Structure formats: C-alpha cells, structure tokens
C-alpha cells in the first residue's frame, strides 16, 4: 500500500475537538490534493470525522468550510492548474468554491466508531485519557481487517503502553500536533523500539506534506513539550506559593506572570499559558506523567484547589479565552483570581505596587514581539540577560532563577533520554511554544 492508497480511507477519532478538528482539516486537504492528481482522478477518498457530539460535528463543517477557503486562497495559482481541465470553472472564485466542495465531500461526519473499521489510517485525538484511548483503538483493531496504522495525538501517555494494552503489534506511533494544528508547525513524533518502520517513514512524508517541523521525542510520559511545560508551570506555581508568604496571592501571580512574559521575553505569561491550555488539562497531564517519574513529584495542590472550585481556564467553543488564574476581557488579562475571596481582583489595583517591588527592567525595548524575528537576537539576549544578571532588583533575580530552572529542565530532558539532544528541546520550545530562545542556552549560567 503506497502513500496515496494509505490515505484513501482514514478516520479521525475526536474530530470535533480542538485538536481533532485541526487534524481533520489538514488531513482532508492532503487527501483532496491527492485526489486531484491525474493518476488519482475518480478514485474514492473517504475521511471519517468521528465524534460523539452531533453539535460538535455540525460546528466542525462550518469550521472546515472557513479554514479550507483560507487555505485555498493561498494556493489559487496551483488550483487553477489542477482544475485546468474543467471548462466550466473560469474565475478564481469558481475554482476555489469547487475545491472547498471537493475537500468537504471527502469528509463523512459520523458518531459511530464502526466507520473506522474500514480505514487504513486512524488518528486518535480523543481526550487525554489512557484507558479511553486503549479501549477505542483495541475495539477498532479487533474489527478492522486492514491492520490499520494508528497515529495518536497524546501529549503525555507513553506510546508503548497504548501499543501493549491495545495489542496493536507496533502499529501505533505518537504524532503530537500543537494547538491549533492548522497553525502550529511543530509535530512531536514518538516511536518505540517496536514501531513499524514503514509506518514511521509514512509519518515523516505525511508531516512533510503538511509542512510540519518534526521533532523526534523518545517514549517518556509528557515527551519534550509537556516535559518542559509541566515542570516550568510547576516552578512558577511554587514561586507564587513562596512569594505568597510575603505578599497577597494575586500580587504573587501578577509578579511571576510578568517575570515570565516581560523578563524572560516569552509570548505570554506562564499563568496566561496555563489558562490557554486549561487548568484541567495541565492537572490531567501532570497526573498522567507523575507515576512515571522518579525522585520528582509533578503535582500541584493549588491546581487541585482551583479545579475544586471550578476555575478551569481553557477556551469557549468560539475560541475565546475562559477565565482561569486570570480574567480576560477581549482576550487580554484584566484581573487575577484571589484564592481567599474566591473572586477576581482588578490588576490595576496593585500593578503599580508590584512593578515597583520588581524594580527596573533590564531593557524595556527588548520584548517578545520586537525580538522574535531579529537576526541578531542571540546577541541581543546575551546582552539583555548579562545586564539582568548584574542587577540587584527583585524582578531581575526572580527572572534569573526562573531562567536557570528552565535551563535545568531542558538539560534534564536530554540527560534522561526524553530528547535526543539539546537542539530538539530548543526546537520544540521555539516552534511549539513560540519562545524567542531555547531553554538550553548560556544566558543564565553566568557566575
């Protein structure tokens, strides 16, 4: 079965979810593009969009239509060539509409798992629950006579466990997209010693065709991305708990969030990132990873507390941000949750006081937006952090310690064999988390 044949019948499990819908979109476009090749004309292509939610599937088609249109607009030059034989399609708009129709025609929204029994390739993007994943894949494999390949989007569950428990005989690998899959270029590819080699090669070609940057990660819970993010988040939470002994909780969250964003020059503060991913998801991933870790307790009572009182973060179905550690207005944080009063306190009430306590910023001109695309950013950061190192201010010290911790986490991922090398760790953080510099650097190890 060659690449094109493999992609003739595919199922995405959890297709209406945040990750599933993106995976479905990219796969539908890849399949439609294959179907337009002269040698494939007239051959049936089928992509089952499987999800339990009827409502979600209805929204999925709207999402697909909008997104496929955007994708088509960017490749109209190519599309005109593909539809050159269609005399009835003359204007760009006519060609584009036909293409959108052709992509959507491949997609079959279904609520029953039986649809996957004829597929050659199955993407699994259901919720991050090992037992559910194992149950679904096992059920499909027992009923599918094609010996299909399984790509799981898990961000934390070791692949060998899924393989063994679902009895898949090496026909599963980790293909971890970042959110949102249609935009984020990073894919973590996780294989085990038993992984089918032909499938691994297929995964690489598929990723390349989707124009993704593939970083191999070894099969350890959390892999590289969450391996860094979870520990980094836990450090931030512990710093808040430490500062909370000297200042109110809201102010401590404000300070550490600001340190991560402005002092470590990241695209957003760490608590905003936790809210974006979802406090529930972060808690869940920590719980999945923790049993696999020695001498390390990846767990936060604070997250449990927030979950207990229903502060969860994450996104609404329209993509807007739900309140979590922070409260948002038009996507911007405006207030911080106070654990004592269980209500949000406007940031403006204490921001000046906190800013004063943090002291001087090494160079306000160095921010994420202005630096991310600079060619000389290595030098800019070297000077920036050297200045920070020499400063006595509280903010500078907090940031230096935070940067050191991020650096340690990076090294830990390499030393424990999660990542093959420091470049892979840095690529994940640069590409998947849009950091302006990788965690493995020389900026924070100054004497």
């Amino acid at each position, binding site marked *: 079965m060659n690449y094109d044949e493999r992609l003739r019948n595919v199922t995405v499990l959890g297709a209406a979810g945040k990750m599933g819908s993106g995976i479905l979109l990219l796969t539908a476009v890849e399949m439609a593009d294959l179907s337009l090749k002269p040698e494939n004309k007239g051959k049936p292509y089928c992509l089952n969009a499987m999800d339990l939610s009827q409502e979600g599937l209805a929204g999925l088609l709207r999402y697909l239509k909008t997104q496929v249109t955007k994708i088509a607009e960017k490749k109209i*030059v*190519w599309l005109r060539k593909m539809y050159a034989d269609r005399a009835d399609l*003359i*204007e*760009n*708009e006519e060609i584009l509409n036909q293409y959108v129709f052709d992509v959507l025609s491949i997609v079959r929204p279904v609520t029953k798992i039986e649809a996957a029994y004829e597929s050659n390739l199955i993407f699994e993007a259901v919720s991050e629950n090992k037992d559910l994943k194992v149950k679904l894949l096992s059920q499909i494999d027992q009923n599918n006579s094609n010996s299909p390949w399984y790509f799981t989007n898990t961000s934390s569950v070791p692949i060998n466990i899924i393989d063994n428990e679902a009895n898949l005989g090496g026909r599963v690998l980790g293909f971890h997209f970042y959110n949102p899959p249609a935009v984020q270029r990073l894919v973590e590819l996780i294989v085990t010693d038993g992984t089918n080699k032909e499938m691994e090669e297929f995964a690489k070609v598929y990723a390349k065709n989707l124009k993704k940057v593939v970083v191999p990660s070894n099969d350890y819970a959390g892999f590289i991305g969450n391996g860094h993010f979870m520990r980094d988040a836990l450090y931030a939470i512990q710093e808040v708990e430490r500062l909370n002994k000297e200042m109110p909780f809201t102010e401590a969250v404000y300070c550490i969030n600001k340190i991560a964003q402005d002092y470590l020059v990241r695209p957003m503060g760490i608590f905003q990132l936790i809210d974006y991913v979802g406090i529930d998801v972060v808690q869940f991933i920590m719980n999945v990873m923790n049993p696999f870790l020695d001498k390390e307790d990846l767990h936060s009572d604070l997250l449990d507390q927030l979950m207990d009182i229903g502060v969860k973060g994450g996104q609404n179905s329209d993509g807007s941000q739900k309140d979590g550690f922070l409260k948002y207005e038009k996507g911007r944080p405006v207030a911080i949750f106070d654990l004592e009063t269980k209500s949000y306190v406007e940031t403006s009430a204490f921001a000046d006081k906190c800013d004063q306590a943090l002291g001087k910023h090494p160079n306000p001109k160095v921010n994420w937006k202005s630096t991310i695309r600079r060619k000389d950013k290595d030098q800019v950061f070297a000077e920036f952090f050297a200045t920070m190192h020499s400063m006595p201010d509280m903010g500078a010290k907090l940031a230096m310690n935070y940067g050191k911790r991020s650096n340690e986490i990076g090294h830990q991922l390499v030393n424990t064999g999660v990542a093959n090398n420091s470049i892979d760790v840095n690529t994940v953080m640069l590409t998947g988390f849009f950091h302006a510099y990788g965690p493995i650097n020389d900026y924070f190890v100054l004497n």
Partner: protein
Amino acid sequence: MKKLRKKVYIAAGFNTVSMGTGRSEFNPKKERPGLEYYIETAGKGTLAQVNDADNIDEGVIGNFMAARFNKQANLPGFIPYIDKKLEWKPAISVEGACGSGGLALVTGLKSVLAETADSVLVLGVEVQNTMKALYGADVLAGAGWYKKRKEGHAFFFPGQFSNRAGAYYEKYGKEYAREGMKRWFVNAMENARLCETAQEYENKAPDLYALYDKFKLNGETFVDNLTVLDCSKVSDGASALIMASEEGLGKLGIDKKDAIEIVGWAQVERNITNEPPNPTEVTTIKKAAHEALESAGITIDELATIETHDCFSIAGILGVEALGFAEPGKGAQFVTDGHTARDGKIPINTTGGLIGWGHPTGATGVHQAVTIWEQLTGKAGPAQIEINPDRPYGMTINMGGDDVTVIAMVYKKAE
C-alpha cells in the same frame, strides 16, 4: 486627429486619498467608506473651487467595475448626490477598464467641443478593497477578453504583464531589465512620499533598492516575472475636475491662471480579442501618444512632465520607449540612468504614479490630469517640480486593459 476647434480648459482638480495597504488608517478588517463617500468627497472638493454648482452644465463619471466591486450600477445617479444643484441635469458614466477615467475626460471634452455644455464636472472613482486580491483579480480580468480568462493566470493582469516582462527579459536581458524596473519602483516611492494623498505617502523604507531586491520572483505564489513591488496598488479613491470652455471658466468664476488648456489629444482602441502585436511594445500607447503630440503640434522635447500608466513597472518602461525617449530595449537603461526621476530629463509620475500614488482603476485617468494641472499651475506642494518655460507642456497617458483602450492628452498652462 483634427485640431481642437475651440479652447478647452481644466481646473479645480481634487484627489481623495488613495486608500489601501500602505496607508496607516487602512484596516481591511474594519468597515470603510464606500463608493458614495469617494464620489461625494472628490465632487465636493472640486465644487469648493467654483462659485456655484448651479453653473455646471453636466456631469461625467468614469468607473470600471462598481457593478462587481460594489454591486452598484447606474452611477450617473450619484452626480446629484454630490450637490443638489446638479440634480435634473445631464450625467453619464463611461467605462473602458482602467482607461475609464481617460474616457471620462474625453467625454467631457467632447461635450464642450460640441457646445452642448460650457462646463462639465468630470469624476473618476473606484472602490476595490471590498474583496481580497485574488477575487479582485477576477473582477479586473474583465479588462481582458473573457474568453481568454480560463487560460489566464490566477492573477490575470499581473500574469499578462509578467508575460510582457518575460519577453523583454528574453530579448534584452533579465538583470538589465530588472535594474530599470527597480529604479522605476524607487522613483515611484520617492515621489509618493511627497504627496499626502498618495497611498505610499507614509512609506519609510530606509533603502528602497534593498527592499526591491528582497522580493524574489516566485511563480508558485504569484507570477513568474514580477513581484508585488512591480505592481500598482489595490486602491479606493476618486478624483474630480472641471472641464470648461472659456465661457464656462468665466461663469464658474475660475481665474485662467488656475487652469490648464488641453492642446492635443487622442483616443485609440486595439481589438480586445487579439493578442498584442508585439509583447515588448505597447503599440496602442505608441499610436495614441504620437497622435496626441501631433494634434498638439509639439515633440517630446517640449514636455515638462508626463503622467503615464504604470500599472506595472514594465508598463512604465515600455511607455518610455513608446513615447520615443528611448529606442526599443533601451527604456530600462533610460530609467536606470535616472532620466525619468523628478530631477531627470523628463520627470514622470511626479506623485508616484499607479505604483506609488495608487490605482483606483476607474479614477486613474482623472487623477493623472489633476496631477498635471497641479504641476503646471504650481499647486503640487512638496511634489512640485520646476516647469521650464522652454518646455511648458504636460501629458497624460491612460490605458485600459493590456494596451487596449488608450487615451493621451497634452496640456499647457492657460494663457
């Protein structure tokens, strides 16, 4: 072309801002003013320079594709929208693709020559940022023969002129040609920076030559032989002016020192269903320009400045050759040597042309005449060039489609 049988003047020119990418106030995601706003603003801008709108006899409006960009036809009905004193008077709209503005000038001119009007409000308008460029390309492709659309490029007109550029590269050398095209772009930006209504007025690129070099030819995402910097802008805008006889000027209270005279003109059509006879020559422009010069009784050596239709940088260079400033193949060198810059032998497109000022398609012909009026009457502000008394003439060349509909006019300051 017969000599003009009476003197016809242009005065009271007005340009709206050319709105689109490049202007800081432009936000494609926000609702923007429509066709009505531009017609009204340009029309009122011109009327503010005359004593009484009641003294205007008729209106002409040049527009290319409001029927598709704005889903609006019957544009003559917007002339009375400008001023209620224009209601119950004649008005007409004319279309000849990007030459619509030039046709509006010709229509006004004919009314005055025919003595059916002493004064005409001539206006050109286009509002084309209503859709993304790839859909706009479908609309603009209407300037070509529809039966050729299927075989054309996604970006139809850039595709047509990319083919012309490709033929020029092959014949005379690619690097050589692109040097000339680069200088054309640089001149356009530098001139636009001097005109506050220009779309590239706020352009601050420190090194325009380096900027041009940064954009690489890429046929997979655009066309083979042009980059976006070789192309005119997608613009919303309108321009207006008064065209009048001597009596008309008097009735409107316009001093002759504030007017220019049309001393020669030509309008030429090429069969739209044929391919251009020579891809490295703009044959219709060549014919129209020389007929207009002949009609004015002057040579190119007497021209102080020209507004030419540089919808693409290559069209600018071919225009220079068609006018006779350089032999075929030598136009790129002429431009590279700076002869068309504002301080060169023949300053061309002194407020940026279609690449720098902007290209609201149906308005461009009128905008060109307004620019020449400004230059010859000393009203061009920071963009003003010196007009040598030995070379007192200005010229406009407005083109519709791929060298299909061409209008050329020659002007001098009124005496």
